[in-house]
């Protein structure tokens, strides 16, 4: 008698409980009539039963204690890392502050060049910016690394960074006057500026 093709595959599919009904019928019918395949199938079942019969063994005594003793000791750094992981917002905030301070300080140190807000009618003379008499500047003026001499009128805020602001008796500034000369003033100025911008964004 000829055994069907794939009969061994069907046996395995049967053992994995993955056989479809048609093939299962075919397998069962064949096994009833073919002693050779029956023997083969019994050998498979026997092998499985023997493997499963190996009694369940237990871990050696003191296993858990040994593992616990070999665990890496919690180091401070690990604790800090974990703290960072669990407080992402604080981590981000402190990182932001560190970077901000760093970049501000570096701009303070680097920025020794004279600069001034471009406005018509402003006269620049030897790092001194002059608002000429009788002229009206509409808008804010920022002077870096230079002095400002106001003889006319400024309709806006005046900021002098790393310099002096001279006011002539006839001079007039309608907005705020700020003179920034020290590093901390510089940072404070930036913080105020950033928060003002933020507030204006939210408004």
């Amino acid at each position, binding site marked *: 008698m000829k055994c069907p093709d794939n009969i061994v595959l069907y046996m395995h599919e049967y053992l994995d409980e993955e056989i479809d009904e048609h093939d299962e019928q075919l397998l069962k019918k064949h096994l009833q009539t073919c002693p050779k395949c029956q023997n083969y199938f019994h050998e*498979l079942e026997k092998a499985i039963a*023997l*493997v499963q019969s190996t009694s369940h063994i237990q871990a050696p005594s003191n*296993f858990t204690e040994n593992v*616990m003793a070999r*665990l890496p000791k919690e180091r401070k750094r690990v604790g800090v890392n974990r703290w960072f992981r669990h407080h992402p917002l604080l981590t981000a905030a402190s990182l932001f502050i560190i970077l901000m301070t760093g970049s501000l300080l570096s701009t303070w140190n680097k920025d020794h060049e004279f600069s001034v807000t471009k406005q018509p009618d402003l006269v620049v003379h030897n790092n001194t910016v002059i608002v000429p008499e009788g002229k009206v500047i509409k808008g804010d003026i920022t002077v870096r690394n230079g002095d400002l001499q106001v003889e006319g009128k400024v309709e806006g805020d005046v900021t002098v960074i790393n310099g002096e602001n001279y006011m002539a008796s006839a001079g007039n500034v309608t907005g705020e006057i700020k003179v920034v000369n020290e590093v901390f003033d510089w940072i404070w100025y930036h913080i105020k500026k950033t928060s003002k911008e933020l507030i204006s964004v939210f408004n």
Partner: protein
Amino acid sequence: MEALIKKRIKQVLKGDQSAYGEIVEIYKDKVFQLCFRILGNRHEAEDMAQEAFIRAYVNISSFNIDLKFSTWLYRIATNLCIDRIRKKKPDYYLDAEVSGTDGLTMYSQVAADTILPEDEIESLELQETIQREITKLPEKYRSVIVLKYIEELSLNEISEILDIPLGTVKTRIHRGREALRHQLRNV
């Protein structure tokens, strides 16, 4: 059970090392058994099982808490054992695949009863014999057979643990069973 494990893992993540002791206690027998059946040697199995728990601890923050912890742990243990087998593999090894035959080993070239003479079998404990036959399986069949018949895991879980497709798991189980049938039919 899974809920308890998850609670303990969260405690470990918060830095409570002692909570890990409970996890080890729950899984130690299963992991040790897995290593022992794959390696066939108690001493090595203890080493690997301990190593598996230590690695799981060290990498616990990379464990996805929504998955089954046992699957992840078995995966670590199985990989460690497979690495160990590969490292100590001698040059000539009956289990070595004959090149170009995909899974056919020298064992299939040797008649089963010449490996173990009849009287020797009788003098050995049956358990030891079976373990020896399991250990003789090529490593890729050995791991699936142990996971399926000793740890009693589903084919899907085995596929996850070994990170191989389900179809490959089935093929390896079929071939592993064939090899065992051949090796154990005279026991």
